[in-house]
């Protein structure tokens, strides 16, 4: 991995001079080789599906703004939960119940906003969506707390607790509404699921892109300053510039992409009629921009990365994963940390429930079925290790993107469901095998 040599001895200096360009590049920029590998795999999947579509079906549908925009929205729900699953798996636990918790939260929120709140506040009251979301997150947190308590203080293996939870909460979701589908949800709430009205448009997207670029530059500048202050080895200046340019370039590229997907004609016609716009429909170009669920995912990603790497809680999570006994002996309240991890997981399930039910504009009893497997797969493909102590948030989000890309790609080129399952299953096993080999070599 990346090793910084402060005062290279002769032997080390010789090695540094002779190393191949790529190794030196990785060492100077301090980019994780695994991250590059995942981006490469993603590029391969995207280009592969696009070419296959072009050659076999005569139309490459994958690398179009429309598909990529949809892909981003579809990734959001799994991605949000996968960030929490990283922490669960890092501490050598597992959560099989995330799909069911999500279903239960979605059903509860639907009941709150469709059956209960309109009676009290009146239909379409602006507070409805806020109260609903808060309730959904709280319900998720409470369920997670119960699971965490059983795992940490009752010493029941997480596999069993959450396997029980998988059945329990699915059944409970059915009982809540006797299996009915509740629809439609509150108007404002439904915007949290994306769609033309649930997107922030071109200007908003540029603003977010601009802020993100500023943050990237600030972090690079601040990191350099800190290293200087403590006399740590610095990255070469060219590497700092390279990181800044690639980082900002990627951000602005994504903004350009989401802005080049226009509203569909039907929606534009509706909008034009409602706002008395005279311009012919064909000439109006209204960008989607980032969908709200994608912004939620980005916020969760940033927040969770901060939590995992910059706070005591995150440090404890990884220390417990690396050596539970050492963590306990170091005076960490490991059980309480475990409860908090499961609470966090539950809260994120609640957030995913918001995204999914808002996107479908309804809550059905089977919402989130099998999601636990996709979430676990996303975390594991993203480099989270079942032996504990290793995993990254960005990896899990990329993993979710890989899983969703496969799924979407196969739908686009017309594979049927059976083949899709076979491919997804094989890819999961293959990805973990590659990762195992990589880890062994990386020593």
């Amino acid at each position, binding site marked *: 991995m990346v090793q910084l040599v402060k005062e290279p001895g002769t032997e080390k200096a010789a090695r540094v001079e002779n190393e191949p360009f790529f190794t030196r590049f990785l060492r100077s920029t301090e980019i994780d080789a695994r991250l590059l590998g995942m981006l490469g795999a993603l590029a391969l999947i995207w280009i592969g599906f696009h070419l296959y579509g072009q050659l076999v079906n005569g139309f490459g549908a994958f690398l179009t703004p429309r598909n990529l925009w949809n892909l981003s929205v579809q990734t959001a729900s799994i991605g949000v939960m996968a960030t929490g699953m990283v922490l669960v798996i890092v501490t050598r636990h597992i959560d099989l119940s995330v799909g069911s918790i999500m279903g239960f939260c979605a059903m509860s929120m639907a009941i709150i906003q469709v059956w209960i709140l309109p009676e009290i506040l009146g239909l379409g009251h602006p507070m409805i969506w806020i109260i609903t979301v808060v309730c959904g997150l709280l319900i998720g947190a409470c369920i997670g707390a119960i699971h965490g308590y059983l795992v940490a203080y009752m010493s029941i293996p997480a596999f069993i607790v959450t396997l029980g939870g998988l059945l329990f909460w699915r059944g409970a979701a059915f009982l809540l509404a006797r299996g009915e589908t509740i629809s439609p949800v509150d108007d404002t709430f439904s915007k949290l699921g994306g769609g033309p009205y649930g997107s922030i448009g071109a200007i908003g997207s540029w603003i977010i892109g601009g802020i993100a670029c500023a943050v990237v530059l600030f972090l690079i500048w601040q990191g350099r300053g800190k290293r200087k202050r403590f006399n740590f080895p610095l990255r070469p200046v060219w590497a700092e510039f390279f990181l800044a340019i690639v980082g900002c370039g990627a951000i602005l590229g994504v903004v350009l992409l989401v802005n080049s997907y226009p509203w569909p004609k039907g929606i534009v016609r509706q909008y034009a009629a409602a706002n008395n716009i005279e311009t012919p429909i064909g000439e109006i170009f209204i960008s989607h921009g980032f969908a709200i669920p994608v912004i939620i995912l980005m916020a969760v990603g940033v927040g969770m990365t901060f939590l995992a790497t910059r706070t005591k809680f995150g440090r404890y999570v990884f220390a417990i994963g690396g050596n539970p*006994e*050492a963590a306990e002996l170091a005076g960490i309240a490991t059980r309480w940390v475990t409860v908090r991890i499961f609470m966090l997981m539950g809260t994120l399930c609640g957030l995913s429930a918001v995204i999914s039910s808002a996107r479908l504009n309804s809550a059905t009893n089977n919402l989130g079925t099998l999601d636990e497997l996709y979430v676990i797969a996303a975390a594991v493909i993203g480099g989270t290790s079942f032996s504990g102590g290793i995993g990254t948030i960005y990896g899990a989000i990329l993993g979710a993107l890989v899983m969703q890309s496969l799924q979407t790609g196969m739908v686009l080129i017309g594979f049927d469901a059976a083949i899709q399952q076979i491919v997804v299953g094989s890819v999961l096993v293959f990805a973990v095998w590659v990762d195992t080999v990589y880890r062994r070599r990386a*020593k």
Partner: protein
Amino acid sequence: MNENNQQTPLVELRDISLAFGGIKAVDEASVSLYPGEVVAILGHNGAGKSTLIKVLSGAYSRDSGDIMIRGDKAVINNPRDAKSYGIETIYQTLAVADNVDAAANLYLGREILTRWGTLDDVAMESEARKVMGRLNPNFERFKEPVSKLSGGQRQSVAIARAILFNAQILIMDEPTAALGPQETEQVGELIQALKRDGIGIFLISHDIHDVFDLADRVMVMKNGKTVGTARTGDVSKDEVLGMIIMGKCPSGAEPGPGAVA
């Protein structure tokens, strides 16, 4: 150590008992430790020495007996309590979190925070470099997870972790078991340095040769009971070996309840 009798002991374990199920792992064992003194606790595997010391470090709760720190009764129910009395332990298994780097291990459970309440990694690494520089000047691998370090390097991380927080009482469980000759010598020098700072040290070992030359006194356990205690100047290695194997107390030693008559 001649004035020991007038001084208050740093630590005194009085009649500590602890049973696991029906088995009495520690049976009314007592031992004391004075400032700047090294006491070796010896015994076969399963004699109860590690268990006794884990009572002091808070990893186990005793069934009965008292722990006195500087003459006052101490309440130690978990590792955090023990640390608040300045008791630091270096475990046989080198209890370090393998997947994080040296600095993170040194500060595990007592992280330095920035004024925003976030981890101050740079400050922690900077302090870690200072401590490790004193302990093991060749140590350079600050950015790597501890799992990639050698046994001796891991040992120095574990020791640095203990002295970083001004430990008054240091417990070392088989401190040299995992080390080569040169590293063992380093640990020996380190113990001498810690003694000069007035730190009391418990060394636990089943191998008398590891610790006899380092210790001021030995305390021997057998079947959970104290066989006896002796100054290393008053007894020979063979006599101590006799205590360990047969429970026979020589004339130079002060016999305990576990001694064979």
